[in-house]
């Protein structure tokens, strides 16, 4: 009886550890777009060259009408963007996001993000 209990506990332990490893070790491919995009009838034009970074990493520059790819590991992250607006002021903002256990391609629309509107993170 005690032996079986130990065996069951070991199996449960393995399942729990597997789930945690799966969740926190999963790598996601994110496409970062700096292109004009239409969302719910509103157009968000790509106007600035934007620097972005994930989870406090190194900044990457993304020019207008360009797309780049990034890999992140785990479910919870934040993106930091920096750009210089038409008045010459440097604007910086940070957005947290959660990927859950989503499959497929994830797209970050920077023009929507800098307007602080929902829908900047799209799963395809």
């Amino acid at each position, binding site marked *: 009886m005690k032996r079986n209990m130990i065996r069951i506990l070991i199996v449960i332990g*393995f399942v729990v*550890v*597997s789930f945690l*490893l*799966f969740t*926190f*070790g*999963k*790598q*996601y*491919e994110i496409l970062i777009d700096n292109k004009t995009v239409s969302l719910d009838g509103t157009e968000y034009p790509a106007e600035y060259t934007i620097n972005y970074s994930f989870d406090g990493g190194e900044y990457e520059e993304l020019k207008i009408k360009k797309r780049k790819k990034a*890999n992140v*590991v785990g479910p919870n992250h934040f993106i930091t963007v920096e750009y210089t607006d038409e008045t010459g002021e440097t604007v910086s903002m940070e957005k947290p996001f959660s990927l859950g256990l989503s*499959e497929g391609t994830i797209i970050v629309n920077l023009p929507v993000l800098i307007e602080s509107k929902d829908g900047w993170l799209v799963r395809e």
Partner: protein
Amino acid sequence: MNKNLSKTLINNAVPIMFIVLSILAIPLSGLSGTYLIQEMLTRLARYLFLVLSLLIPIIAGMGLNFGIVLGAMAGQIGLIFVTDWAIVGLSGMFLAMIISMPLAVLLGWVAGIALNHAKGREMVTSYILGFFINGVYQLVVLYGMGKIIPISSNKMLLPRGYGIRNAIDLEPMRGSLDNLIPLQIGDIKVPVATFLLVAALCIFIIWFRKTKLGQDMRAVGQDMEVAANAGIPVEKTRVISIIISTVLACIGQIIFLQNIGTMNTYNSHEQIGMFSIAALLVGGASVVKATIPNAFVGIILFHIMFVVSPRAGKTLVGDAQIGEYFRVFISYGIIALALVLHAWRVYKDKERARLIFREASTSEAKGKEG
């Protein structure tokens, strides 16, 4: 004194030959000491777990377990799944271990049952069993995956839509264990975490030998009939030893591949049994006795030859390929010699025992007559 010396020389003939060859080849190769130390540390981290997985069946008297390729195949299946699910780094490595362990247990159990039906011929049986399971593995990976077993990543599938490609890139996992605890002494990088894991395995083996099961295995290894009469479940003990070996080999293959960074789906496991066994024999082990130091010494000596022989060959005859040819020729020749020497020693021991028994019987008979 002389008898003892000659016995020691005969018992350690293989490592002595390799040491002599290494002493001759290292200066010819022109490789620096730092480079050689770095190479040996890398190769120790890469192979130790696999070589140590061979020790437990030897304790149980089952000889050199060529069936570790079964564990290696299980490990590779785990790696295929985690790569498909995009689980990277250390998480991917440990998840691959957890996924493949039940498969390794199953394969170890099948191998153990088979070897129980082939007592006395375990080595050749496990060698052939490796080929058989390799066929099943290829069937599953080449035809089952993507068709019956879902694989979502197109990068891993063959263009026809099913079957796994020849090579799988493990770059997101590469060095995840080796570089976990960074330590650099001068120009030499030490894979501390891998060595800690190996140290844990060594402690486990030392502890295991002292347990009831370990003692049972030793008893079974010495004499199965005596062990059975003493109430030890011989067949079950032998099966357990093979299961442990297969599971350890499965973990060892995952450590090996995270170090390499690329998995050759249909070949990576094939040479593992031969290379590990060769390294152990070069370290002075035999079919009936192997220790942890044998594994360390064996890997260093065997792989020094790997590293230096092409360069030594180039210096000597102007062609690296000749050096490599001689390495294969001499290394495996010496291993064959080790096996022959072992068989000859067993035969001589039996002959000597028979002679002593006959002499004792004759003198007893004479005593009665007198």
